[in-house]
C-alpha cells in the first residue's frame, strides 16, 4: 500500500485557498458540516469570517430552508459528482436590493464530511460555471494528490507524453512537464491550457488533460475509500463500473472491504462473546486468508494465552469454592505468574487458616481452650481471621475459667451444705425418732396412770367396804360375848341338872341293890326280878358315867367358853384395830386415787405437749430431710458440673484435685456393693431362712 497521509498544514492551506476563492463577481466557496454536530455549520466561510456559524435554519427569500436542501443534496450526491441548488436571494449585506436567484454548486467530500459549496448569483453563473467547476475539481485534485500514488502515474504519463511528442515542441512539453510536476506533487487539479500553445499542439495539451481526467475519478474514488478505511470506517462495496486495471483496483478494494468486514464481524462477535464471559469463543478464520487469517489466529492465540489460565483459574476457584483445595495452580509463563502466585497464595492462606481453625476446633473438642492460632504466619485479612479466631476464644476461655472457679466454689460449698444438712437431717431424724418413742411411751404411761387412778378408786371403795365389814365384825363379837355368857350360864344350869342325874343314878343303884337282895330272898321267883334289877343297876351305872362325861364336857365347855370369851375380847380389839387401819388405808387410797387422777391429767397435758412437739419435730425432720436431699442433689449436680468443666483445659492457677469428685458415697451404699449377699437376708422372704433356725 502507498502511504496515505494528509498533513494538517495541508488542510490549513486548503482552507485558506478555499476561503479565498472568488467565484465570478460576487461568488465564493464555502464548506459546511454535513452530518453530526457540525451539520449546517460553516467550516470554511468566505474569507474565514463566519467560520463556526450555523446556517442550518437559514431561509431563502421564499422562506425555504435552503441550507438544509444544500446539505441534503450534498449528502445525496455521488462520489465525485456535483449537484446544484437554486434559490432566491437578496444580498442585504451588500446593500443590494436586486432580488435574484443564486446558484450553488455542491459537492460532498465524505472523508472529511465536508459539504463544499460554491455559490454566486445566477447572472454571474454562466460566466463562472466553468470556474466553479474548476475550483471544485482543483479541490478534489488536492485531496487526491495526498495519496501520492498518482504522482508516479503522472510522471509515467508525463514521460510517455514527453517522449511521444515532438522534441521541438518545447512549450507544450514544458506545459505537460508542469502538469506532470503538478500531478507528481499531487496537484491533480492542474490542466494544461490549450490556448497557450499552438493550435497544432492544443490536442496534445487536451490529451494530457484527458489523461489526467481519466485517472482522476477512479483515483479519487479509491482515495476516498482508502481514506475512509484508514479512518476506520467500513464503506459499502464499490458498485461503480470501472474498467480494466481500475476494476482490479475496485475488486481488490472490495475484497479488502470484505476481509475487513469479516474481520470486523468476527472480532466484534468474539469481543461480544468474551465480554459476555464466553471465554472459549474464538474468531473464525475460515473465510479469511493470509495475513488476515494469521492476524485472527494470532488474536485467537492471544485469547488462548489469556483465557486458558483464566479458565484454569476459574476451574480451580470452583474447586476451591467447593472446598477442594487439593490442586494448586500450575506455573504460568511470564507475567501470568502473578495469577499463579495469587491463586496459590490464596490456596495456601485458605489451607493455612483452615489448618489453624482445624487445630483450634480439635483442641476445643478435646476441651483445650488454651490453644491459639499462629497469626504470625499470615498477612492482611488472613491474619485478621486468625487474630479474630483467637480473640473469639479469649472471652470463651475467660468465661470457662470463671465457670470452673465458680463451679469449684459452688461444689465445695454445696458439699459442705450437703454434709451439714445431712448431719442436721440425721440429727433431726434421730431426734424425731426419740420424740416419737418418748411420745409413745408417754401415751403408754398416761394410760397406765389412768388405770392406776381407776384401781386406786376401786381400792378406796373396797377399803370402805372392809371398814364397814370390820365394824360389823366388832358388833358381832359383842353379841358373841353375850351369847358366850349365856352359854356359860346355861352350862352352869346344866351342871346342876347333872348333879341331880348323878344323885338319881346313885339312888337308882341303891334301889337296884335292894331289889337284888329282895329277889335273892325270893329265890327262884325273884330270879327274873333279879335280872331286871341287874339291868337297872347297869343303866344307873351308865347314867352316872354319861353324867360324869357330860359334866366333864360341860366343865370343859365352860372352860372353853371362858377362853372363848377372852379370845373374843382379843378379836374384838383386833377387829376394832382393823377397822381403824382400814379407815387409814381408805384415806391413803383416797389420796392415791386423787394423786393418780392428778397425775393422769398432768401426763395428759404432757402428752399433748409431746404430741405438739412431735408434730413440729416430724415436720422439721421432713423439712430437714427434704433440704438434705436437695443439698445432696445440688452437690451431685455441681459435681457433674465440675466434671463437665474439668474436661476443658484452661490456663489456671494450680487446681485443687480430688475435691468433691472423690467424695465417698454413703457407707451403706458401699456396704451394699461390698456385700450384696449379706444384705439379701434382711429382705422379707430371705429372712425366713434365718428365723426358722431359731
Amino acid at each position, binding site marked *: 500500500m502507498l502511504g496515505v497521509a494528509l498533513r494538517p498544514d495541508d488542510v490549513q492551506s486548503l482552507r485558506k485557498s478555499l476561503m479565498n476563492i472568488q467565484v465570478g463577481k460576487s461568488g465564493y466557496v464555502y464548506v459546511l458540516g454535513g452530518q453530526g454536530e457540525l451539520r449546517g455549520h460553516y467550516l470554511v466561510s468566505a474569507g474565514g469570517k463566519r467560520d463556526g456559524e450555523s446556517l442550518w435554519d437559514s431561509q431563502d427569500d421564499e422562506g425555504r430552508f435552503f441550507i438544509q436542501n444544500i446539505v441534503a443534496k450534498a449528502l445525496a450526491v455521488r462520489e465525485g459528482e456535483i449537484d446544484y441548488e437554486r434559490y432566491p436571494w437578496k444580498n442585504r449585506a451588500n446593500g443590494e436590493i436586486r432580488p435574484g436567484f443564486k446558484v450553488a454548486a455542491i459537492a460532498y467530500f465524505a472523508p472529511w464530511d465536508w459539504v463544499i459549496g460554491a455559490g454566486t448569483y445566477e447572472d454571474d453563473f454562466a460566466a463562472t460555471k466553468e470556474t466553479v467547476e474548476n475550483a471544485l475539481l482543483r479541490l478534489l485534485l488536492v485531496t487526491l494528490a495526498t495519496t501520492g500514488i498518482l504522482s508516479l502515474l503522472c510522471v509515467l504519463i508525463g514521460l510517455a507524453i514527453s517522449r511521444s511528442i515532438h522534441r521541438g515542441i518545447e512549450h507544450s512539453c514544458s506545459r505537460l512537464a508542469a502538469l506532470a510536476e503538478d500531478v507528481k506533487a499531487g496537484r491533480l487539479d492542474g490542466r494544461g491550457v490549450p490556448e497557450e500553445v499552438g493550435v497544432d499542439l492544443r490536442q496534445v495539451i487536451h490529451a494530457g488533460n484527458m489523461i489526467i481526467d481519466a485517472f482522476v475519478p477512479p483515483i479519487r474514488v479509491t482515495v476516498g475509500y482508502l481514506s475512509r478505511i484508514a479512518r476506520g470506517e467500513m464503506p459499502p462495496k464499490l458498485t461503480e463500473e470501472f474498467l480494466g486495471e481500475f476494476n482490479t483496483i475496485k475488486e481488490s478494494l472490495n475484497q479488502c472491504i470484505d476481509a475487513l468486514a469479516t474481520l470486523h464481524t468476527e472480532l466484534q462477535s468474539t469481543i461480544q462473546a468474551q465480554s459476555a464471559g464466553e471465554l472459549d469463543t474464538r474468531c473464525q478464520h475460515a473465510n479469511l486468508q493470509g495475513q488476515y487469517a494469521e492476524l485472527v489466529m494470532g488474536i485467537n492465540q492471544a485469547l488462548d494465552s489469556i483465557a486458558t489460565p483464566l479458565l484454569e483459574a476459574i476451574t480451580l476457584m470452583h474447586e476451591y469454592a467447593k472446598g477442594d483445595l487439593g490442586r494448586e495452580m500450575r506455573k504460568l509463563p511470564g507475567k501470568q505468574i502473578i495469577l499463579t502466585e495469587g491463586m496459590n497464595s490464596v490456596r495456601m492462606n485458605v489451607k493455612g487458616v483452615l489448618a489453624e481453625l482445624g487445630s483450634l476446633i480439635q483442641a476445643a473438642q478435646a476441651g483445650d481452650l488454651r490453644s491459639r492460632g499462629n497469626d504470625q504466619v499470615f498477612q492482611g485479612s488472613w491474619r485478621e481471621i486468625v487474630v479474630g479466631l483467637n480473640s473469639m476464644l479469649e472471652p470463651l476461655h475467660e468465661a470457662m475459667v470463671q465457670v470452673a472457679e465458680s463451679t469449684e466454689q459452688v461444689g465445695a460449698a454445696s458439699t459442705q451444705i450437703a454434709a451439714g444438712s445431712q*448431719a442436721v437431717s440425721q440429727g433431726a431424724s434421730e431426734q424425731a*425418732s426419740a420424740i416419737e418413742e418418748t411420745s409413745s411411751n408417754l401415751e*403408754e404411761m398416761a394410760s397406765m396412770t389412768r388405770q392406776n387412778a381407776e384401781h386406786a378408786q376401786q381400792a378406796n371403795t373396797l377399803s370402805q367396804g372392809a371398814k364397814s365389814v370390820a365394824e360389823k365384825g366388832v358388833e358381832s363379837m359383842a353379841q358373841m360375848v353375850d351369847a358366850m355368857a349365856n352359854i356359860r350360864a346355861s352350862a352352869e344350869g346344866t351342871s346342876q341338872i347333872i348333879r341331880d342325874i348323878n344323885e338319881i343314878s346313885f339312888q337308882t343303884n341303891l334301889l337296884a341293890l335292894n331289889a337284888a337282895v329282895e329277889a335273892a330272898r325270893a329265890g327262884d321267883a325273884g330270879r327274873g326280878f333279879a335280872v331286871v334289877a341287874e339291868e337297872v343297876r347297869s343303866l344307873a351305872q351308865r347314867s352316872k358315867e354319861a353324867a360324869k362325861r357330860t359334866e366333864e364336857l360341860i366343865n370343859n365347855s365352860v372352860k372353853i367358853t371362858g377362853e372363848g370369851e377372852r379370845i373374843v375380847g382379843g378379836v374384838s380389839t383386833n377387829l376394832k384395830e382393823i377397822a381403824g387401819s382400814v379407815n387409814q388405808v381408805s384415806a391413803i387410797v383416797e389420796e392415791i386415787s386423787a394423786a393418780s387422777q392428778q397425775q393422769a391429767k398432768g401426763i395428759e397435758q404432757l402428752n399433748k405437749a409431746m404430741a405438739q412437739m*412431735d*408434730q413440729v419435730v416430724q*415436720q422439721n425432720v421432713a423439712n430437714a*430431710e427434704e433440704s438434705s436431699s436437695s443439698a445432696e442433689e445440688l452437690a451431685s449436680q455441681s459435681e457433674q458440673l465440675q466434671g463437665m468443666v474439668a474436661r476443658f483445659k484452661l490456663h489456671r492457677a494450680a487446681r485443687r484435685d480430688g475435691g468433691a469428685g472423690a*467424695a465417698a458415697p454413703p457407707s451403706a451404699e458401699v456396704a451394699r456393693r461390698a456385700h450384696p449377699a449379706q444384705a439379701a437376708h*434382711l429382705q422379707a422372704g430371705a429372712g425366713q431362712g434365718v428365723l426358722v433356725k431359731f
Partner: protein
Amino acid sequence: MDQAVFRKLRRIAFEQAGIVLRPGKESLVEARVARRQRALGLRTHRAYLHYLEEDSSGEELIHFLDAISTNFSSFFRESDHFRHLEGRVGQWLQAGRSEFSLWSAAASSGEEAYSIAITLETLNQGRPFDYRLLATDLSTRVLEKADQGVYEAKALAPLSRQQRTRFFSRQRPSAGPETFRVRAALRERVAFARLNLAITPYPMRGPFDAIFCRNVMIYLDAQVRQRLVAECERLLNPGGVLFIGHAETLMGLKTKLRMVCPSVHEKA
C-alpha cells in the same frame, strides 16, 4: 395431709404391722412418707398412697413399714435389764447350763442386740458357754444398718473404754464424723432378719432363754399385743425371761408370765 389419705395409710400400717397411728400423728406420717415420695419422685401423698396400693410386688409395703416404724435405740438402754440378764445367765451357769438362746425382737439399728452380745461375751470370759442371738425388726432399712454395725462415736458413749476397744474398731471415713464398727467376731454372733411381729405365729421354734421386746407394744394395738405376748410366752423356756419397755405393761393381757420386777417377766 388429707384426712382420707391419712386414714388409709393408717389402716395399712395397722393391718400390715399392727402399728397404731392415732389421730394427731399426721405430721409423723407426712414426714415418714415424704422420704418415700422423694425416693419415688411422687409429688403428692395421694399419689404415694395410690402407688403403695397398686404395688403388687409388696416391696413398697416393706419400704412403707420401714418408713412408718419408729427406730430409736441406744447401747445398754435401760441398763438394769442387762444387769438382770447378767444375773440370770449367772444363775443358769451355776445350774450347769452351757447353751443359751436369745432374741432381740425389735432390734432396730442393732444397739440392743450388740448390747446383749457384749453382756454375754463379758460373762463368757470365765466359764465358756455357747449362745445364739437372733435380732429381728420390721424395718429392713435399720436392719441393714444393724448388719453393718457402724456407729458414730457419740452412739458409743454408754460403753466403757474397755468395751469399746474390745468390741469395736475405729473407722476413718473420708468425710463426716468419726465412726466405729462392731468387730466381726461380735457381728457374727448376731443373726439379723426381718420379722413382722403382727403376723403370728412366728416361724421360730424357740425356746429362748431371754426375749427383749422393748418399746414395741407402745406402738401396737391391744389385740396385736396379746398375740405378741402369747407368742413370747410360747417361745420362752420355763424360767426364761421377757424384757419389756419400762413404760409398758402386761396388765390387762392374758398371760401366765409372772412379773419378776417391773418390765421383767418370767415363764413359770
